[in-house]
């Protein structure tokens, strides 16, 4: 499984004497993206009025995304932002769960986490500027009292940092615990004196269930919920409430 010696992602392909390189994180993220696109294309090939089979499942997912976004903001904005939030949610679940296949989880790399949270930050700032205008966007930091301006700016700037570190820390913690468990089981089988790794067969399964299925869904849900909460905050003007 994963080793604790390489905390960072391994470099797989290098160009120009290794100065320009592709890490396994980038490759896995690309693979996940391609798989998601292929799944989406396959499931929407033969659309029918009466959904059944795969179409039913996909419609359930899409409807769930729209409903989840609708709980946080009004209907018009929910229809605009639901595709972004839904894509983020599905991508987070898939990338967090790559540890299930014995490879390094994609989000256990601080670069991936920061890339995702930077996208969120830009979308929030952009929607705030689109909603209020640039002058209104700058002015809303000084509300309700002008002396709160620096505090409000720090509040907005700390959002991507805390989002990224929350995701990265949770997934990396799970990865390190799994690595330690496999190391311990390995030395236990060596101590018994049997060369067949029979202890690694079923004992890590509950931990896999927690760290590779439950935790990815929970972390994806939390990431998207916080994104939606801040989006909704950027969409309400001061007169609305």
């Amino acid at each position, binding site marked *: 499984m994963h080793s604790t010696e390489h*905390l960072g992602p391994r470099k797989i392909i290098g160009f120009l004497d290794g100065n320009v390189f592709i890490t396994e994180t980038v490759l896995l993220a690309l693979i996940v993206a391609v798989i998601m696109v292929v799944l989406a294309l396959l499931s929407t090939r033969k659309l029918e009025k009466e959904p059944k089979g795969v179409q039913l499942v996909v419609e359930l997912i899409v409807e769930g995304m729209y409903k989840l976004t609708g709980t946080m903001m009004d209907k018009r904005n929910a229809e605009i932002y639901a595709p972004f939030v839904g894509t983020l949610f599905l991508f987070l679940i898939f990338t967090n769960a790559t540890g299930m296949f014995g490879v390094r989880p994609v989000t256990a790399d601080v670069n991936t986490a920061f890339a995702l949270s930077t996208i969120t930050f830009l979308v929030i700032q952009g929607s705030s500027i689109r909603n209020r205008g640039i002058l209104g966007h700058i002015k809303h930091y000084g509300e309700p009292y002008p002396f709160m301006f620096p505090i409000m700016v720090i509040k907005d700037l700390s959002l991507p940092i805390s989002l990224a*570190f929350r995701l990265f*820390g*949770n997934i990396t*913690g799970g990865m390190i615990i799994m690595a330690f468990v496999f190391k311990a089981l390995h030395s236990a089988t060596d101590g018994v004196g049997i060369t067949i790794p029979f202890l690694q067969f079923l004992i890590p399964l509950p931990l896999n269930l927690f760290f590779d299925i439950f935790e990815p869904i929970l972390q994806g849900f939390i990431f998207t*919920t916080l994104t939606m*909460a801040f989006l909704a905050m950027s969409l309400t003007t001061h007169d609305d409430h």
Partner: protein
Amino acid sequence: MNFPLVTSAGFVLGMSALAAAIVMLVALAIGIGQGLIGMKAVEGVARQPEAKSDILQTMVVGQAVTETTGIFAFIIAIVLVLANPLVSLL
């Protein structure tokens, strides 16, 4: 007995390991905080069972925000143990 007993790099690494252990004491406070959130959520569900899904969602998000401090501490601990920046300062 030959001096020094510990090399300076070894001393820094040992102290870093201790510091990582102390940093992770923040888990105590997080456990208490998440327990309080869970307690209040259970009370809310007991009082209003029909609002269960809303309460669950709010509880999970609140617990995630509570956890952030611990995650920061965890990252500091990882850096101190596995990628120590202090040894290179010697």
